[in-house]
């Protein structure tokens, strides 16, 4: 629920000196890297360009390095343009999966669309009032309360981070994910069994939930296979979205979606925004923040040859966010790559600068960030660069599509789905252009809302009429 302060992760390229010359001489024999995973920033581009060869460079043959500056600028543009397709797909899949789970559940399990009259304590005003005006007022009040809660939680998180109360934050995240993984999945399972009229005994259920929960906690907070971790994050996002769909009254839900997009925009981009403050603090301290709620499509591996000689793993750890009672804060950010040194001295200085930034950058749930990769020149290192998207984004996207599905029509559902994906594409494009952390909610949610209301009020009656008169166009 609450989108907490999330760190704006400044692209590590920000502020980096244009030491374009640095990476160039390093002709590293790197493995072919797919164009889509190229770094977009200068230095990174340099790094990225250092390896890999012709095929990725827009079909140009792997010629000897041309003049540094011009090549860089050209390639930079190429990078900017080329970046995106693969990453967009890497994000489409989990977002689609999450939405699919939510829509499937909404359509089949009646529990999540049934209004049982229960409300969350954050939305105390009922919406079944006598007049429309009263209903509007109530929903505005509800939305205000929610947003205030979110803002407060964000600020608390920023303060906790500023005053180095890491244990508190870790514990908070841990408890939240615990609650989400065990309690909500228990309820979900119960409702699914009820829907399909299946008998189930306590013993089996306890074993299943215990396994699901414990393995989930391990994958998210500790170490686990990447795919499983991604799957768990998708599942908990879906669970959270379902909770929202069930417990938020109609008008309140739509209002919250709109207001949260605006808040996201402000918090991430304004200089005084909590997220920005968080990021800057993290950058000053040059440290990764804490395991956060970020979905990462791959991991980045940095190899430090300078000290240990062994690879140090850097993983984007995603933790789960707070459970409903404390409406979700999505505590933020993820642990950035550790600062590994480079190899040659020039590399080291270059890399360290990059990596320094890398390490301090944070991601918030609502931001998409492209993870830079550091390439060790001497190794055939597959650099896996991923794009990251905060879990809050998943949740709100799925909530929007879920509500569209709940209102009944498939046209509306599909329209919202397409709208959100288009928004995501645009956001990634902007990310490629601006090269810094961006809020992922505003564009998608705006499109989603527009499409929802337009389709619901214009397209649906039209299609219904056409179908009624058996008029096919």
């Amino acid at each position, binding site marked *: 629920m609450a989108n907490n302060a999330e760190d704006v992760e400044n692209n590590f390229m920000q502020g980096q000196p244009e030491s374009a010359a640095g990476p160039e001489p390093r002709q590293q024999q790197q493995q072919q890297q797919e164009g889509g995973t190229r770094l977009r920033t200068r230095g990174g581009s340099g790094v990225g360009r250092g390896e890999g060869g012709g095929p990725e460079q827009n079909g140009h043959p792997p010629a000897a390095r041309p003049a540094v500056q011009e090549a860089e600028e050209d390639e930079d543009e190429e990078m900017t343009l080329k970046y995106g397709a693969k990453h967009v797909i890497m994000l489409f899949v989990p977002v689609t999966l999450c939405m699919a789970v939510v829509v499937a559940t909404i359509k089949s399990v009646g529990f999540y669309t049934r209004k049982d009259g229960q409300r969350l304590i954050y939305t105390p005003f009922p919406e079944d009032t006598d007049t429309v005006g009263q209903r509007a007022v109530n929903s505005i009040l509800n939305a205000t309360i929610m947003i205030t809660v979110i803002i407060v939680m964000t600020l608390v998180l920023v303060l906790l981070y500023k005053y180095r109360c890491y244990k508190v934050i870790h514990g908070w995240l841990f408890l939240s994910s615990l609650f989400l993984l065990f309690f909500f999945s228990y309820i979900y399972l119960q409702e699914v069994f009820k829907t399909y009229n299946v*008998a*189930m005994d306590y013993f*089996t259920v306890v074993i299943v939930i215990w396994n699901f929960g414990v*393995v989930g906690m391990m994958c998210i907070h500790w170490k*686990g296979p990447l795919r499983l971790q991604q799957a768990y994050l998708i599942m908990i996002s879906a669970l959270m979205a379902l909770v929202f769909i069930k417990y938020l009254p109609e008008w309140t839900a739509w209002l919250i979606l709109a207001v949260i997009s605006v808040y996201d925009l402000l918090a991430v981009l304004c200089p005084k925004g909590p997220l920005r403050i968080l990021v800057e603090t993290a950058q000053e301290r040059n440290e990764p923040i804490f395991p956060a709620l970020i979905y990462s499509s791959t*991991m980045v591996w940095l190899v430090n040859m300078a000290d240990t000689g*062994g*690879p140090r793993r850097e993983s984007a750890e995603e933790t789960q966010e707070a459970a409903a009672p404390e409406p979700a804060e999505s505590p933020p950010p993820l642990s950035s790559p550790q600062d590994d040194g480079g190899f040659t001295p020039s590399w080291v200085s270059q890399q360290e600068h990059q990596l320094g930034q890398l390490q301090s950058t944070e991601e918030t749930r609502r931001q998409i960030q492209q993870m830079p990769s550091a390439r060790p020149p001497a190794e055939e290192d597959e650099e896996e660069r991923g794009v990251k998207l905060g879990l809050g984004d998943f949740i709100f996207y799925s909530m929007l599509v879920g509500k569209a599905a709940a209102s009944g029509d498939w046209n509306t559902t599909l329209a919202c789905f397409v709208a959100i994906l288009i928004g995501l594409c645009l956001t990634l494009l902007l990310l490629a252009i601006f090269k810094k952390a961006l809020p992922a909610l505003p564009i998608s949610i705006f499109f989603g809302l527009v499409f929802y209301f337009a389709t619901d009020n214009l397209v649906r009656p039209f299609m219904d009429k056409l179908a009624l008169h058996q008029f096919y166009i």
Partner: protein
Amino acid sequence: MNLERLPNEEKLILCRKYYLGGFAFLPFLWLVNVVWFFREAFVKPAYTEQLQIKAYVKWSAVGLLFWVAVLTTWITIFQHFRAQWGEVGDSLSFTIPLGTP
């Protein structure tokens, strides 16, 4: 987490932790262990720790099979005899289906 990037000792430690963890009524953990470390244990060319990893994967598989057998048996028995057990069946049930059994 990418296993490729881990040094072998750490792989072994991880495999062992997953194996030991499975004893806490966590067959899913054993399943993850088997699937995740399968390539490491059986497909990759040999390295020093591989023997132990192989052992852990094998024993995880054994444990997993045991649990699968137990659960399948219990679920079959429960689903079949639930109606006949009357009250006991109801108290054991998490969800009771509607309609006549």
